[in-house]
């Protein structure tokens, strides 16, 4: 299953009948005037390219050989006009098609991003982030390139060859036949070469990424490498990778080095024939020097469109494979969607009820088994139990990130699938264990809770959450940048910000996954205070690790193996001397040991150097 997401193993074999090409072409539909203009432009440019040779021929024959200065001046004037016209065409063509390329990239990215926002959480939990990123960043580039420069280069190459052949036939059919016969040979050889070169080039890219990964690992793990004296062995291992990279890369460049000379040599054969046959005819007076010169020019020039054609051909397959992956992403339907006949809601204040809820991911073992409970409005529930027991899944179900595989979840009296998804999610406030902040200022991050909140309201929320003091201790206070993913803030600070953010949203239900990592005592107290602000008057679900949280909860549910194994308040559960008792005493010990900083050493202090 992992392999399908492995960038290195991605397949380039495409079924052209799958309609992917047609679908790709449809992306051009809104831009058909530009595309048409560009194609007409490139065809004219390509016509003029071929026409120069005809002009040159006439300059030689009618001007120079005939020693006719006025005619020659006229021809040169024509030449200049054609150059000007072609330059204008050339400019327009680069301008239009380059711009269109950027436009398409923009469109594809926008469309993908938009689509991604609607996909369900389940999609993201089973698809590696890197895979999705590659679709949006690199595949869209390849698609746009194929649709713009790919199409244009093809049109240019085909028309250029055709016009050249057309003029050659007009100039001298017998000589033209020699060229026409050599053309397929050159095209065939070119295609073969290009495909091979591209293959090795891609292989070398793969080898390169393996090599980089190995280097990366060796730098990250350098402490172990040194301690275990693995340097020599690691270098040997690396050499295997670098040799592989060398071989693939070398093959690619060697083939490239052979390629052009090879088709030049093939063209040399037709040149020899032309010179020989043409020479005879010139001597016999059948053709002029100008015609001979024109043929020589054509043969030399025709190599360029052939090369371009072969290059586009080699890269096309990969670009189409990219499109196929992008389309497969676009075709992905969100698993959780709004039902019909929705009940609009202003508030989710009310009881929360799970009735016989079971849940499993795809066809796996059930993670939640026949879970039933009823929480009256305003109560606080603490979920405790070992990791992997199903606590997170329960809150994910409650937030409707997932929906039950069977059973019903009721909020305020109705099956929650009757509500609009957006309403549920915006009425439930969530604080995650590892709070996620977005890069930008603290203010931006707080405002995420309610987009139309005023600066006063933001500060108010921060004060309530106990975040105001540390925020104002920053140089720029609320405008302080939090860094990528909020990395400039400590875990505790991030948590305070995310609590304030949730407060600002004024949710009806509050869900929190308490952090396991220890924060300093002061911050911890602030977090507790902030949580109480959020919990008051709201139905709250806390995945609890802090004893104070657990003890003050109205209801404690011990979750193991997807089921509730114990339920009650602190006192009753303690008296039971069951699972809860064990968990509690262990946690108690741990907390106090941490509190007194007994053996505090969370990280090796060498890195502090």
């Amino acid at each position, binding site marked *: 299953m992992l392999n399908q997401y*492995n960038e290195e193993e991605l397949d380039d074999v495409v079924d052209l009948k799958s309609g992917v090409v047609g679908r790709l072409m449809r992306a051009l539909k809104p831009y058909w005037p530009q595309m048409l203009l560009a194609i007409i432009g490139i065809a004219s440019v390509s016509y003029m390219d071929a026409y120069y040779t005809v002009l*040159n021929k006439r*300059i030689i024959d009618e*001007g*120079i050989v005939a020693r006719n*200065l006025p005619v*020659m001046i006229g021809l*040169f004037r024509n030449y200049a006009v054609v150059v000007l016209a072609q*330059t204008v065409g*050339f*400019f327009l063509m*680069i301008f239009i098609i*380059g711009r269109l390329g950027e436009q398409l990239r*923009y469109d594809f990215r926008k469309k993908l991003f938009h689509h991604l926002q609607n996909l369900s*959480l389940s999609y*993201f939990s089973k698809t590696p982030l890197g895979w999705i990123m590659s679709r949006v960043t690199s595949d869209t580039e390849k698609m746009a390139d194929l649709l713009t420069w790919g199409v244009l280069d093809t049109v240019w190459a085909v028309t250029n060859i055709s016009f050249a052949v057309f003029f050659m036939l007009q100039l001298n059919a017998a000589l033209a036949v020699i060229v026409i016969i050599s053309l397929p040979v050159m095209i065939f050889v070119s295609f073969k070469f290009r495909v091979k070169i591209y293959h090795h080039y891609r292989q070398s890219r793969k080898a390169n990424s393996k*090599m980089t*990964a190995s280097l990366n*690992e*060796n*730098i*990250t793990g350098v402490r172990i*490498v040194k*301690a*275990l*004296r*693995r*340097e020599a062995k690691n*270098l040997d291992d690396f*050499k295997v990778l670098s*040799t592989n990279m060398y071989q693939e890369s070398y093959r690619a*460049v*060697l083939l490239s*080095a052979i390629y052009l*000379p090879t088709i*030049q*040599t093939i063209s040399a*054969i037709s*040149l*020899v024939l032309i010179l*020989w046959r043409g*020479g005879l005819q*010139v*001597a016999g007076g059948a053709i002029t020097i100008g015609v001979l010169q024109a043929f020589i020019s054509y043969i030399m020039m025709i190599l360029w469109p052939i090369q371009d054609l072969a290059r586009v051909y080699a890269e096309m397959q990969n670009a189409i494979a990219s499109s196929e992956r992008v389309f497969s992403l676009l075709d992905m339907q969100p698993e959780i969607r709004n039902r019909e006949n929705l009940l609009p809601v202003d508030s989710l204040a009310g009881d929360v009820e799970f009735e016989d809820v079971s849940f499993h991911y795809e066809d796996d073992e059930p993670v939640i088994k026949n879970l039933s409970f009823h929480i009256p409005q305003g109560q606080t529930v603490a979920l405790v139990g070992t990791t992997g027991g199903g606590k997170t899944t329960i809150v994910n179900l409650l*937030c409707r990130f997932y929906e039950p595989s069977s059973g019903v979840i009721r909020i305020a009296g109705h099956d929650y699938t009757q509500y609009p998804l957006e309403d549920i999610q915006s009425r439930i406030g969530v604080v995650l264990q590892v709070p*996620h902040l977005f890069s930008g200022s603290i203010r931006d991050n707080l405002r*995420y809770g309610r*987009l139309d909140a005023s600066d006063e309201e933001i500060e108010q929320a921060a004060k309530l959450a106990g975040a105001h003091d540390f925020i104002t201790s920053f140089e720029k206070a609320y405008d302080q940048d939090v860094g990528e993913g909020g990395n400039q803030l400590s875990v505790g600070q991030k948590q305070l910000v995310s609590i304030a953010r949730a407060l600002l949203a004024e949710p009806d239900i509050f869900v929190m996954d308490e952090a396991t990592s220890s924060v300093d005592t002061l911050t911890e107290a602030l977090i507790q205070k902030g949580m109480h602000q959020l919990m008051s008057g709201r139905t709250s679900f806390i995945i609890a690790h802090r004893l104070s949280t657990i003890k003050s909860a109205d209801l404690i549910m011990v979750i193991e193996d997807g089921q509730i194994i114990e339920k009650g308040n602190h*006192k009753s559960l303690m*008296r039971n001397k069951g699972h809860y008792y064990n968990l509690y*005493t262990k946690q*108690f010990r741990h907390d*106090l040991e941490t509190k*007194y900083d*007994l053996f505090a*050493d969370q990280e*090796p*202090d060498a*890195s502090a*150097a």
Partner: protein
Amino acid sequence: MSKQKEPYIPLDMPRVLGSKNKLLSLWHLMRGYHFHYLVSTVFLALAAFARTGMYVFLGTFIDRMMNEGLMGPELTLSALTFGSLIALQALSSFMSSWMANFTAENSTRRLRDYLFDHIQRLSYSYHSESKTGDLLERATSDVDTLRRFFAEQAIGVGRIVMIFIISFIAIARINLRLALFSIIIIPIVLAISIVFFKRLSKAYEAYQEQGAVLTTDLQENLSGVRVVKAFARQDYEIEKFDKENAEKFRLGRKFNWMHALFWPLSDIICSAQTIGSNFYAATMVINGVMTLGDFISFHGLLGWLIWPIRNLGRLIIDTSRALVSFGRISVVLQAPEEDMTAATYQPEGAIKGQICFDQVSFAYEKDYLVLDDVSFACEAGQVVALLGSTGSGKTSLVNLLPRFYDVTSGQILLDGVNLNEYSREFLRSQIGIVEQEPFLFSCSIRDNITYGVHREVSQEEIEEAAREAAIHEVILGFKNGYDTLVGERGVTLSGGQKQRLAIARTLLINPRILILDDSTSSVDMETEVQIRAALDSLMNNRTTFIIAHRIQSIMNADLILVFDKGKIVQMGEHEVLLNQDGIYKDIYDIQARIDSALQEEIDRVESI
């Protein structure tokens, strides 16, 4: 190229780094391939000659045909000569390109290998001060920039210059005035091209940077998908992304605009020259100053004189980039490697493990002592527990033993001999380290266990070690057993499991001295007991330094060192320290207080 021996001649790094001129350094990087590169240059010249010769020959061919008329065998011979010149040109181009690429690929492969080894042999402190991404960038993309320099730019500049000179000479032989007239625009085109490519590379960088912004934005959005959904902020996110996306669109258009301007503009200038020169030449033919054949030669040569200049700007800009890349690489290369083998004392066989710290001080930076006048001694096989808060110097102390760092003042004696007299290589072979959460490599579990065991190990031996480290059952639980891959492509192990793998590995290595971080992060009781047993068997008969996290390991230690701000504040056995006022007694008391607090708590619940 046999597989047994090194596929290349080693680099002469002192010469590379010792050269004053960067281009000279790059030349030394090609050591062993200088001949190939020269051959490449010779063929480059040959190709240019052949190409020029082709046009000159075409001219004489036409003149002869016009004047005396070529017939029969002479014509055939001429046609064949012409074809041979093209073939020679093609062959020479191939040879030149082949040799240049051969040099480039081989030189850079050697440089990559060298850098890999160099980086892993850089000192510990170098690594703690540098960023992985930055080192990686220098060892990969900067090296690739050099590869392109060897293969494309150096040769490309040579090619263009050579073609220009030879074509110019050939034209000058036909008519000097015509030749001079034909290069009027060259300085203009060259100047425009340099300015353009310089600006283009800036615009391209901006475009790429915006691409990175967009990628970051996307990544944040995807990794924060739960937050986005929790606040139902999809529209807001779309708007935000669109802003950056539109900015990239704008930069792309700007970039495109520059292309759309440069190429046609340079086209016009070059075409003007072409038309002018051709017209000039054509009138000369009409006036009888030049022959028709000369005109046709000239016509062909002119293209090679003018058009390639447009690309010269790009090559020059790229060359300056290659020099920057080399500068970045040479900074890494200049950093000194750790000397692994230098030793003035080499014991016979293994060490015993008696250790003495004699007034040891250590500082990472000047004036800030991390260890301050530390003195203590322990016998072979004893257990030394290190206690103290974060930053008190415990880890720094154990880092001195394998000579990851050397003492700033004082001395450490191992079996009575100064530690600095042993080679690092030897010391590290005698010391085993089990970290709190060891770094594992993305290879199989088996390879991770045998990582750094410098001998052949049988499967039985591996399994025995794994059993002793209480990890065997866990491993068998994986689908592929010992062949299961660790990391992104395989299983993710918990901190405790990683630690037990490291214990198994250390058992196989069988070192005389052990450095141990004895924390057991959240594992259940049963596993904790197993790990405890595994650690005990590991410590058996080895001098052990424990960075202590639990009271058990302290109570049984032969020597307890209590650290505060780099100094030993208390030292002795458990019983002794317990009877002193100080940190140790405080800690112990707290432990006792926790027990009674817990009991109180339980009693309170019971009583209500």
